């Protein structure tokens, strides 16, 4: 077991941190929130760097990296509250297309990502049905809380069919998407009405391997969202540490008080715990380890614990100075919390992890 980032991974982390630190300052996020910028300039920068193709295989024109590099990158993007559709494109859409699409469309869709097109996924097998309709498919139902569902160029809909789970790739504009309000206005979530949407034969994929592919892609999506949460939490901690070292009361920095120190340490430990599990989840995906389902749930559960504690202590330790719109704390606080209810809540993933482990226990008890 080698649980350290290697030199190339550390270099990637450094490069991404440098670039997004420069290109995505708090002022940009604020501009996106108030509507004076749409983040497209930042997206173009990412495209020029090939980052959206991080896990697109080399043969398909991408960088061909693993989920570990993806998680490293997403953590840094969480740290700056990235306002682009990077998360959905790289950790949801690309994995679904990679795992489920085949033939010419797969090449076309992955090629489009390399050219800067974006994608999102509606994991809506419980809410959307697909029926055969002549040479293609017709969808029925609606998908709620789809990350970037209102602005992605392509939407991959996971729906139920008579032959099991299927994936149906719908171009933007075909389905009615309505962005829903969230407290993190730089993060897009949408409800999508899919009733009567027709999908061509070449854009629908069904079969046992698709069902398996969806499950695997969802693990990557869950892990990616956890990584964003960890990155945003890390930013909150960094801001808090700066504040409690500088802020003096009673003639001393408030960070010298044990009550304050211990809260900061608990934030730090919660972040380390969650980050370790994000890396583990990514590693199980990269190595296709049988623990990948468990890994993703552990990462999401720990990230949920992490943001909960970091947000609570973070606002508290800033005192009144953090309770303003002007303080950038609120930007990262929002990003840390926005992922909690999406793709399975903290409690759902915690219970899911418990079930996976309990399934291997023996019903024995000491007398």
């Amino acid at each position, binding site marked *: 077991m080698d649980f350290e980032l290697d030199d190339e991974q550390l270099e990637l982390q450094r490069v991404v941190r440098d670039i997004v630190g420069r290109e995505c300052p708090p002022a940009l996020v604020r501009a996106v929130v108030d509507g004076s910028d749409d983040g497209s300039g930042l997206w173009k920068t990412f495209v020029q760097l090939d980052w959206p193709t991080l896990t697109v295989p080399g043969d398909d024109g991408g960088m061909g990296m693993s989920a570990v590099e993806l998680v490293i990158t997403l953590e840094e993007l969480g740290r700056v509250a990235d306002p682009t559709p990077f998360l959905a494109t790289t950790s949801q859409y690309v994995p679904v297309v990679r795992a489920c699409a085949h033939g010419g469309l797969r090449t076309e869709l992955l090629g489009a990502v390399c050219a800067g097109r974006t994608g999102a996924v509606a994991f809506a097998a419980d809410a959307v049905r697909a029926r055969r309709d002549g040479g293609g498919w017709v969808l029925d139902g609606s998908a709620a809380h789809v990350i970037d569902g209102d602005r992605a160029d392509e939407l991959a809909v996971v729906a139920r069919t008579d032959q099991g789970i299927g994936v149906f790739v719908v171009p933007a504009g075909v389905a009615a998407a309505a962005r829903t309000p969230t407290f993190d206005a730089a993060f897009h979530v949408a409800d999508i009405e899919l009733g009567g949407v027709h999908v061509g034969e070449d854009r629908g994929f069904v079969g046992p391997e698709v069902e398996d592919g969806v499950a695997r892609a969802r693990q990557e999506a869950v892990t990616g969202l956890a990584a964003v949460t960890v990155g945003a939490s890390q930013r909150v901690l960094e801001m808090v540490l700066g504040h409690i070292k500088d802020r003096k009361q009673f003639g001393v920095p408030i960070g010298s008080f044990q009550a304050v120190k211990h809260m900061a*340490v608990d934030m730090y430990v919660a972040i380390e715990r969650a980050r*370790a599990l994000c890396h583990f989840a990514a590693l199980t995906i990269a190595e296709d380890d049988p623990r990948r389902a468990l890994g993703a749930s*552990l990462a999401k559960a720990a990230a949920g614990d992490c943001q909960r504690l970091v947000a609570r202590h973070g606002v508290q330790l800033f005192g009144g100075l953090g309770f303003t719109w002007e303080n950038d704390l609120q930007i990262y606080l929002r990003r840390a919390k926005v992922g909690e209810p999406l793709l399975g809540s903290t409690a759902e993933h915690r*219970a899911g*992890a418990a079930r996976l482990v309990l399934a291997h226990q023996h019903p024995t008890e000491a007398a």
Partner: protein
Amino acid sequence: MRLSFDEQTEAFRREFVAWLDENAPDPATALAERSRSSADIPAWAREWQRKMFDAGWLVPGNPPEHGGRNASLVEVFVHQEELGRRHIYPSHNPQGLTIIAPSILVFGTEEQKRRWAVPVLRAEITAALGMSEPDAGSDLAGLRTRAVLDGDRFVVNGQKVWTSGAHDADVILAFVRTDPDAPKHKGISCLVIPTDSPGLTRRPFGSIVSPDDLDFNEVFFDDVEVPAENLIGQLHQGWRVATGSLGHERAMLWLSFAERLDALVEHGGDTLTARGLTDDPLVLDSFGNLVVDDYALRLLGYRTLAQARRGVEATEQSILKLLGSEAVQAATLDMLEAMGPDGLDPDRRSAPLDPLHSEVFTASWWERYLRSFAGTIAGGTSQIQRNIIAERVLGLPR
């Protein structure tokens, strides 16, 4: 980053596992004679420890003459992992094996190694650690037991407390004040004191578990004469030995918490399954939390292992101890409460007894919960760990 160890490490693991299969003690013999304290090694366990020493499997990182085979850090880790997985205690005098012998091997003379370190490793004698005093707990450097050098001997007066296993130990590695005028860290020395020395009195006292749970001792020194040659390290330089000793203790601690968490998953999972509680939402929540902690601790531990391997001084032992000890405590309490009224019986084991391990690891949930406080108090309390992390890792002002 990768999930597996390299082939050389796995070959080492296979060799050790094969040796264990061949040589592990007979559980029936082990059941017949139990250890009564952390310095009481039953005859079968002495034989077992000696066998491990002779085969170079007791402390694989040591050279052969000290019970090892010059194994690498990762191999040492894998060795610990296999013993933990199989619930085998390498020594029923754990302080001797993991703190006292290594301290003497690092700071002692050749003669001292021969007289005390090797016999402790070979289970010919047992040893206890004399650190804490009534007024020196977290502030260990404030210790006041006084030793005056008088010609070729020290005369020791004072008191130690929490000295685990002292009543069954042959020697105590004691930290004493030899220069009362120096700053507190600079006037401490380290002595090996035989427990049969005239003037030395040991009084075992019951722990919170039971009046009959006798492991802790008060140790009183009343003009106890100790030969000058029993000084470990240099005069007044005992703090270096102490931090070295605690270093040994801390370096191994995270793995012991990881083993406890693994055991909680195993014993807790079996118990919950047997009791039909595996669909209870509260149980799923608390058990899921345990699984998160278990994996996180192990992963963070692997990271410190990789750092240590590269020679980077791990700043993370405090994080591991804090996270591990508090996770064990929370999960044990969750299990105690999941038992309902059946958790009231203090004699109802939480899991079948592992004959080759210490009994406390399968004691009742109540006892395991009480003992979890040893993790959050001994070896630096959770509050001290938080101070250390705040100052050394987060850079907060003292």
